[in-house]
């Protein structure tokens, strides 16, 4: 279980601290899939960073009784001068797991071919994304964090990711930030809508998406119209 109690996060700006998250309370239980919606800058990625532990909250506490992944397919941790294999080795070292079987998996899944032994700086962004996703799948976590990942790769790769993630890991908790209704709708069983630093909880996708669209200033006249247009 992951429990956030009265969590606030401020970031300094020239005109004083700006509160990005305001008194957030949230519990994520094993196996739950939580979809996260909100405008740009609403605090979605901040929440992911806080839960991943990359940053501490300004106030409040975060308890984690589950192992939490780094944000999936996150390639910011790559060192450009290192090869794909070096980066896999680094991850295996810090997580204390065997390199060989995981390297085989990454080679196979990322389809990088000979490029696995070339510096990451020579990769295209699609190759980086494939490597990052494959590495994310080598370590087994109780809870996976995903921040807009599925925008990466071609449709065939996206489909393989979907299988790897949702079909092979049905029992894992997931936090998914996405703007895509196609992606969130069938996947999640809880939804969080970010509004002015606070979080609204919804169980029904159509309800949350209707409100989200209104928040974006693209309001539908009615839910029926929205559902029709989403087809």
């Amino acid at each position: 279980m992951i429990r956030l109690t009265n969590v606030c996060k401020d970031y300094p700006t020239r005109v004083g601290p700006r509160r990005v998250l305001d008194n957030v309370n949230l519990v994520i239980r094993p196996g739950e899939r939580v979809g996260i919606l909100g405008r740009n800058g609403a605090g979605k990625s901040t929440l992911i960073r806080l839960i991943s532990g990359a940053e501490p909250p300004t106030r409040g506490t975060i308890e984690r009784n589950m192992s939490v992944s780094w944000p999936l397919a996150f390639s910011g941790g790559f060192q450009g001068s290192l090869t794909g294999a070096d980066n896999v080795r680094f991850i295996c070292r810090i997580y204390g797991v065997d390199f060989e079987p995981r390297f085989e998996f990454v080679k196979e899944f990322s389809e990088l071919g000979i490029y696995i032994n070339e510096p990451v700086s020579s990769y295209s962004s699609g190759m980086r994304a494939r490597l990052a996703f494959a590495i994310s799948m080598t370590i087994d976590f109780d809870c996976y964090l995903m921040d807009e990942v599925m925008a990466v790769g071609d449709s065939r790769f996206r489909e393989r990711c979907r299988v790897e993630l949702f079909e092979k890991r049905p029992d894992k908790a997931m936090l998914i930030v996405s703007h895509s209704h196609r992606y969130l709708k069938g996947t999640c069983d809880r939804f969080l809508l970010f509004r002015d630093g606070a979080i609204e909880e919804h169980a029904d996708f159509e309800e949350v998406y209707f409100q989200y669209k209104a928040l974006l200033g693209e309001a539908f006249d009615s839910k029926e119209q929205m559902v029709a247009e989403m087809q």
Partner: protein
Amino acid sequence: MPSSNSAPQTGALLRSSPAEVNRRVIGALLIRELLTRYGRNNIGFLWLFVEPAAFILIVTFVWAFVKNIQRTNIPIVAFALTGYSSMLLWRYTAGRCIGAVKSNKALLYHRQVTIMDIFLARILLELIAMSAAVFVLTILFYSIGWLTLPEDVMEVIAGWALLCWLSMGLAMTLGGLSEKADFVKRVWHPFSYLLMVVSGVAFTVDALPTGLQHAALWVPMVNAVEMIRDGWFGSDFHAHFDIPFVVACNVALTLVGVSLVRQIGFDSESESGGDE
């Protein structure tokens, strides 16, 4: 190093003892830094030695000429080696820690990587690299007859260890400060040049005018360098140093450094923290 635990059970891994996790993470960061800095191509890891060796060679040649003019009993190669490597030790270590967090911030997404690990890995790499360089150069200069081995090896090692400790404290303090204020980076550069001049690279305390001798010993680096030189060629000159003073400085710098490093992250400034 990959441990023998092959079960992909991360939950259990994260619960393994903190010391074990620390060791693993620092080891992994060390290798990563090594590969990043020296790469696999060209002469790769050799740069570790070539860089300081080139410096020391040049300095030795320059001072060899000065010696002809000045006439002193001090063995010039030992003098240059001890002085210059000591200066490189604290300068490089501190330099590597300024802004260290910024270039490694993305790694903090991995729960077991802490800011302290990032600093310790960089510091360790620098200390090991310089120590290895001094060792190799000693053997090299000795084998071609330019250098006699230390008279008291233990004293040299003790002095070097004190200097390593000092470098660590200084690096953490400056690294921590540089995360608080950008100007630290800019101020440190000119200040480090000033410190170079007064740190005992190019003088022995005994050679200074009496009035300055006392002042020079207020610089902790001077004490450590004097100690190293005393161990190396102490019979050729009269060394001045105060070990308790250096230890006190080291303890103070370490405490300040550790607390500054631990404060980082609690006032992380950038909202785009982990992006590429």
